[in-house]
């Protein structure tokens, strides 16, 4: 039994690794990486973190990073994406520390630093929440080509917004994208690639 197990484990580790590599190659290769010429997505910004401190693109650069725009009055995509990213950071293990992750609100009127702080307490503590003035949010959304718009409901409003996860390299240049519809496997291999090459 013990002998069998000691052989099985390395074998299965090898098989999983080989399969992961195959999946990664199959999924990532057909998508051309646009690294050669700089894609005009991303750029400098000036925001406030969920700790209430000033936060700029300089605080993200130095490591590759993932940026996602959303809002807390969001029933589905925003908490689900933050949940997925939390699982991803755990799955990345020590590599997760080589990555920054930011959640930028498109609803600064309601998403104060305090609210972001309590909201993000459900997720990986490495995810930073960012808010700002209406102008600051409009400016960073423009940098990332992110669309957002208020939609009135009964005496209230909700937001339409671009749900892309932007993957940026350590210099703050565009590296690729992911989104909440991708499987965990695809998203994680993209994040692994980003850690390695970004």
């Amino acid at each position, binding site marked *: 039994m013990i002998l069998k197990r000691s052989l099985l484990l390395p074998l299965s580790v090898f098989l999983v690794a080989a399969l992961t590599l195959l999946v990664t190659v199959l999924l990532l290769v057909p998508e051309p990486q646009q690294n050669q010429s700089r894609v005009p997505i991303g750029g400098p910004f000036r925001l406030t973190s969920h700790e209430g401190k000033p936060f700029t693109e300089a605080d993200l650069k130095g490591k590759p990073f993932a940026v996602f725009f959303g809002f807390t009055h969001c029933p589905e995509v925003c908490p689900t994406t933050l949940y997925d990213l939390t699982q991803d950071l755990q799955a990345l293990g020590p590599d997760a520390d080589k990555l920054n992750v930011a959640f930028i609100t498109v609803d600064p009127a309601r998403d104060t630093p305090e609210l972001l702080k309590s909201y993000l307490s459900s997720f990986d503590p490495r995810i930073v929440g960012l808010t700002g003035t209406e102008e600051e949010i409009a400016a960073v959304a423009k940098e990332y080509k992110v669309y957002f718009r208020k939609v009135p409901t009964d005496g209230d409003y909700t937001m339409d917004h671009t*749900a892309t996860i932007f993957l940026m390299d350590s210099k703050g240049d565009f590296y690729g994208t992911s989104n909440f519809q991708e499987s965990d496997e695809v998203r994680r291999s993209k994040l692994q690639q980003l850690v390695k090459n970004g």
Partner: protein
Amino acid sequence: MTSSSSAGALVAAALLAVSTPALAHVTFETARAAPNATYKGVLRIPHGCNGQPTLKVQVRIPEGVIDARPMPKAGWTLETARAPYAKTYRQHGEPVSEGVTGITWSGSLEDGHYDEFVFQARITDAFAAGSTVHFPVVQTCANGTEEWTQIPAAEQDPHSLSHPAPGVTLVAAPGASASATAGSLAIEQPWSRATPPGAKVGGGYLRITNKGQEPDRLVGGSFPLAGRVEMHEMSLDGTVMRMKPVQGGLAIEPGRTLEFKPGGYHLMFMDLKEPLRAGQTHKGTLVFEKAGTVEVEYAVRPMGAQGAAEHKHH
């Protein structure tokens, strides 16, 4: 309630009541509601007063009914009267001691026309199951009024009254009677998702199948930890996630299933009072045009959940 009826108008109204007893009364479209739940009242005004157009429709919200919210109406101006309640009630764990006690729509409705006036309110547990809640209504015309304000005494047949106030009878929904109240609607797997602290909204998902012969329409609902429940439609437009309120409810044709699920329709729990936690169950209601108010129990699933049962999407 202000009723500016001269002695002459009163006589005229009395004569009218005697001479034309066949005229339809002002009634609610749905005359049944779940106890201690939000009720959507659709008042049906079948005619004017003595051949004249109706210029004003006033509803008095009785004691024990709280959080009344009128629906604005195109071409009509809306006024509400607020006053302290006689008693203090609790809503979402918080004391409520005042609110809307009267609603007035002002506009014009031809005598020969029919119209509906809509409001929503919470009928508190001040009214027991089996009792009837009366909402006195006054129709004001250029010359006089129609006062639908008579409340039957105990044991009195409301049909013996010439101008009964429209009433809603409370029908207990749980257990065996739930399916009776739901009629031919089968409601499956209501679930919600855990929310982060501070989140003001949550999503509700379920499937409703119409096994009957008649179409019905989901028009609203309630959730104990939410200020109100809206129906929303979500869609992915390229990379943009869009969400918009559904106007006028959702029809369920015979033999069809209406599905609320991630990425499509959802019930949106607005103004959450506290976070939803995985493992909890919460009783809410759904309000249908024909089947009335139906109790549903939502199971709260973990934050990563994409369905009522355990399986990961894709």
